[in-house]
């Protein structure tokens, strides 16, 4: 097999950049910021090169690079992308420079360490999406905890310590049980294949042959880890804390990319590795997903804190993604992948915009604001677009994802039942309620608070530069989603084929 080093370069760019950051002087804040942005832009350029070199008509993994890493355990450094992971890689490299740019004012304390943490966080996220060795995946999955932990803990809000520790321990609990399942699977593989291996492509053949009762447990261990990350109701309690306490950049990355690691894990590991269990548990999981959709929406509705509102809306939106994945039709899984990207863009944008207000007034409670349309017209328009995208207005990105998921779940052979779709659809309506109601209270009406008149200024050029690229994609996906759907179509089909070949035919 020919080796392709591009993905390795992609990983190395932020690693080297991060190490170089350490050699700057602490006082050179501006320089460090520019350097961080330059490094993350370089990573973005590399990911674009990968995108243009990617063959969309090939369902296999591409850009594979494999080197033996730990010989005694037959573990290799093995990376590659298919359409789904490529899309998420692009999302990561796209959002990282934007978040770095957004922190220009917000982060003053220890810029050097912040940039270092962000770049290493990027390494962890990219590694998760491109690993084709389940052990390597686990390493990135865990290693990414450390920078995120620092980002919340050092630069966060008042209750940052509680939030950081809760985030860390929740994630650890899930992932360590997954580690046991990974080892079990690898040991099982050494019985059937004759050698110990953690190569994902080989385990795809082994996983479905595991006896059903044990497979159920292993599926459970993997699922628990991913469900905590997603987060799926009722495991979501760490998310509002982490989101509210994290600095804006942390929230954007957390919502934009980190949560997608959970849903990506479901698509990449849970479904194809344990198809029988996945189909068996799909109705139960989907019930949880639907509960999450409605519960998240209802809780959002009563929030008084804007950031918390957006955080709970994530629970609701990601419920759609999980529903789409476990409906297991081509439409719904593609919709779920698109919805992952959508959520990254629109929720990322919402967090950025809440951050814009917060930077000026240091307040996030809705009641404090009112009638800001008169004070900051530009901001109000931008916020409207971001909200509508999150609500799922046709013509913007959110609609495409939710529509595909709903269609897919409607005709899903796994559910064979309309009720999931009916209840999930109510989440779309509720989203409109809580988001637009928030908008009404904050933006419209008379100016309720005199303090606002002094403190609030409209968005500046830097903030527009951060938000504009996100909007381009929000509209692009909304109007011409085929660019992105073509990318994921064959990969989705090959995953569903893998699942279907052991259970019911999913590709009718």
């Amino acid at each position, binding site marked *: 097999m020919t080796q392709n080093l591009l993905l390795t370069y992609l990983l190395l760019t932020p690693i080297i950049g991060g190490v170089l950051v350490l050699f700057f002087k602490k006082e050179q804040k501006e320089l460090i910021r520019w350097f961080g942005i330059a490094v993350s832009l370089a990573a973005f350029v590399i990911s674009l090169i990968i995108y243009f070199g990617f063959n969309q008509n090939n369902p296999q993994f591409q850009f594979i690079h494999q080197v033996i*890493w730990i010989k*005694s355990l037959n573990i290799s450094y093995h990376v590659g992308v298919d359409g789904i992971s490529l899309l998420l890689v692009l999302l990561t490299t796209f959002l990282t420079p934007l978040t770095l740019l957004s922190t220009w004012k917000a982060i003053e304390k220890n810029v050097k360490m912040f940039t270092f943490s962000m770049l290493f966080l990027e390494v962890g996220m990219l590694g998760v999406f491109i690993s084709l060795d389940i052990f390597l995946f686990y*390493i990135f999955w865990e290693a990414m905890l450390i920078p995120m932990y620092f980002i919340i803990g050092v630069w966060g809000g008042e209750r940052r310590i509680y939030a950081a520790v809760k985030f860390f321990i929740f994630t650890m609990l899930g992932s360590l049980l997954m580690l046991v399942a990974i080892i079990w699977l690898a040991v099982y593989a050494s019985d059937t294949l004759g050698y110990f291996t953690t190569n994902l492509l080989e385990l795809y053949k082994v996983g479905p042959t595991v006896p059903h009762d044990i497979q159920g447990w292993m599926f459970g261990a993997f699922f628990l880890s991913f469900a905590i990350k997603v987060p799926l109701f009722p495991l979501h309690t760490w998310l509002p804390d982490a989101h509210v306490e994290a600095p804006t950049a942390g929230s954007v990355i957390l919502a934009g990319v980190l949560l997608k690691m959970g849903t990506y894990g479901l698509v990449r590991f849970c479904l194809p590795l344990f198809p029988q269990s996945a189909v068996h548990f799909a109705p139960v999981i989907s019930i949880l997903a639907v509960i999450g959709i409605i519960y998240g929406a209802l809780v959002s509705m009563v929030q008084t804190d804007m950031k918390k509102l957006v955080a709970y809306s994530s629970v609701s939106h990601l419920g759609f993604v999980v529903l789409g994945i476990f409906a297991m039709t081509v439409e719904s899984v593609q919709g779920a992948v698109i919805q992952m990207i959508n959520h990254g863009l629109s929720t990322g944008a919402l967090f950025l915009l809440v951050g814009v207000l917060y930077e000026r007034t240091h307040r996030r409670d809705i009641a404090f604001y009112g009638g800001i349309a008169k004070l900051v017209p530009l901001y109000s328009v931008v916020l409207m677009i971001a909200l509508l995208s999150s609500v799922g207005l046709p013509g913007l990105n959110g609609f495409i994802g939710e529509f595909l998921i709903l269609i897919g779940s409607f005709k899903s052979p796994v559910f064979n039942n309309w009720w999931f779709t009916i209840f999930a659809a109510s989440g779309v309506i509720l989203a409109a309620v809580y988001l637009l109601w928030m908008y009404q209270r904050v933006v419209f009406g008379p100016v309720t608070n005199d303090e606002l008149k002094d403190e609030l200024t409209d968005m500046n050029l830097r903030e527009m530069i951060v938000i504009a690229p996100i909007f381009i994609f929000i509209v692009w996906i909304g109007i011409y989603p085929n660019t992105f759907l073509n990318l994921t179509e064959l990969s989705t089909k090959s995953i569903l084929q893998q699942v279907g070949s052991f259970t019911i035919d999913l590709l009718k």
Partner: protein
Amino acid sequence: MPLLIIAAGIILSVILEISSKKSVRILPWFSILIFTFTAFYSVYYIDQNFVLFGGMLEVGGKPAIFNFIFNIGAALVVLSSMDYLKKYGTSYGEYYILIQSSVLGMMVMSGAKDILMIFMGLELMSICFYVLAGINRKKLSSNEASMKYFLLGAFATGFIVYGIALIYGAAGSTSIQNLIENFGTYSSNIIFILGFMFFLIGFSFKIAAVPFHMWVPDVYQGSATTVTSLMSTTGKTAAFSVLLIVLSAVLSFNAFNVFRPYFAAIASLSMLFGSIVAISQTNLKRMLAYSSISHAGYMAIGLAAGNTFSMAGIIFYLAAYTFMNIGAFTVISIVEGENDSRTELNSFAGLSSKNPILAAAMALFMFALAGIPPLAGFFGKYYVFISAIESHMTWLAILGVLSSVISVYFYIRVVVFMYFRDAIEDFKIEVSAYSLTAVFITALLILVFGIFPDTLMNVILSAMH
């Protein structure tokens, strides 16, 4: 050979100590020289395996890798001791001689081919440790530590001697080779099994496993920090090396089933007890004492699993643990003030702004101890969990990961204090260049063994054949 180098080193050191008044300045460097030389000598000749002294001692192979851990560990401890002892007020030449002698004892233990040799090595090591624990004779806590260690250690020794007596009574020989070859016949003899059990219990004391852990917290807290770092790492490694020798004897026969539940029990108890109790500790040394108990538990998973792979896993774990713990204790010894002050968590508050390098190193050690990849501590756990699952003891691995989750809490609490809180106590840290070097070396080793675990694993595997 490595034993002779150390022995010669001890004699030379004693002469030096008697003849020269400046010996305190020369001795540490001399010890470091000897330790590093022995360490690399052992690894270099790792495949030259032969038996000495009429079948009493083995050199090369498995003992060589242990010798490497002992000597590198001791060298690092000596390096971090130099300035610490001045601060602590016990800058005596004897200290270094005692460390050398204890290392000799450990090397005898790990290379023993006869149960009596194990006993001799153990006593040599333990007696040095009893003295080292009380090295500051003017301080009450140090005396208490020494006394406690001595009494409970003597108790454990009693078990071991009684066990050896029973084994000899049943088998008529103390040669380990003989035990290995005839284990099947002996294992039906109840007296032999009883003796073996006593022997294991005695060593369970030494590895600090629950329920034989009572001495650990007080001794670790009361002794000088550098002494604790020596005891908790190389001392534990030496005790494990004996258990591994015995284990390999038992492994060759299916009779192992008798002891498997025992190890599984102490493993699960130690992991959970250590992790849970450590949560409520506010003193760092005491917290690391409980963490050391729980690490003994993780390693004991490997003993319970009892396959050839688990041996390599335990040795890897021991090496990783040695470096992580020495690193952590060295950082504590740098921050520590006079009279045991500043070993509380509060003293570490705001360390990241006082001394970023020290804080970063400590954070690295804490994450490594918590078993976060890609650091060496993670692979230690990974290897023993694999061995447990291979031996169909998945429940033990699950218990292990659950207790890891608990332990994450108190390890990252140190990071919380260092990074997320502002300084509570106002003091200036005098960083000693020697200690800092030791911190750097351990941090580097943890990173290298974490990112490229094969570098260490290949050496271990080649030693096992």
